[in-house]
């Protein structure tokens, strides 16, 4: 069965680093997301965008993985935005409190512009 890690492309946009995350965000995303975050950190980035696909299925396990990343970014004083997610997950991220630690934008471009 296809329970693979996410494909994540790391891009620099000025002083912002974008993690372009393909696929669903679940407990199975932990290693690929942590690894991509470490790679982004090697670039000494102070601003981070997590671009998630609009069709992505995100569950409680994926929410825990995202919050773990936010724990790191808070400790390092990094600014984080999340882009791409559907209205449904915007609502859920607000409900859970993720929006207290990450700004939400519709597109990675909007996120980069606002963080930059």
């Amino acid at each position: 069965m296809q329970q693979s890690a996410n494909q994540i492309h790391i891009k620099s946009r000025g002083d912002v680093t974008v993690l372009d995350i393909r696929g669903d965000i679940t407990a199975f995303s932990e290693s690929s997301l942590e690894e991509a975050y470490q790679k982004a950190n090697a670039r000494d980035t102070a601003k981070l965008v997590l671009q998630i696909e609009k069709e992505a299925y995100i569950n409680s396990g994926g929410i825990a993985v995202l919050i773990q990343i936010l724990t790191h970014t808070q400790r390092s004083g990094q600014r984080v935005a999340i882009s791409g997610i559907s209205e449904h997950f915007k609502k859920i991220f607000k409900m859970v409190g993720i929006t207290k630690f990450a700004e939400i934008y519709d597109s990675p471009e909007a996120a980069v512009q606002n963080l930059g």
Partner: protein
Amino acid sequence: MQPEPVNNRVKIVLPNTLGYERVAMASLASFAKMHGLSADRIEDLKTIVAEAAINAMQHGNCGRPDARVTIVFKVADNTINVKVTDDGNGFNKEVKDPDIDRIIAMLDKPVGFGVFLIRNLADRVEFKTLPEGGHVVEMLISIN
């Protein structure tokens, strides 16, 4: 809730493997669309059935590969009723809402989001240990 003679009941039996909750999400979404549920409430329904199925696999059936998760849904009184059953004994502690500030400060573990989402997205929810053994989560979402 009395059993009533409804002729729209669908039953799904899933393997006890993370990922298969997607099959329940897809079938329930299709069922709910046929019965006129709005697109945004269908998203809520998909999330709650996924979370209840994941909990049944992990906490109820404790990950046993030979276990099964049974999901039954029907419409009655303009309300979608979803029951997710596992073979376990139900909750062994009270589940508190996760506190994101404490989690970010690493004072709490990042857990408890499944039950939190079910409680917040369903119109009504009941967690019940069954007299014949097993545990069921019954969730209601009203169509209008």
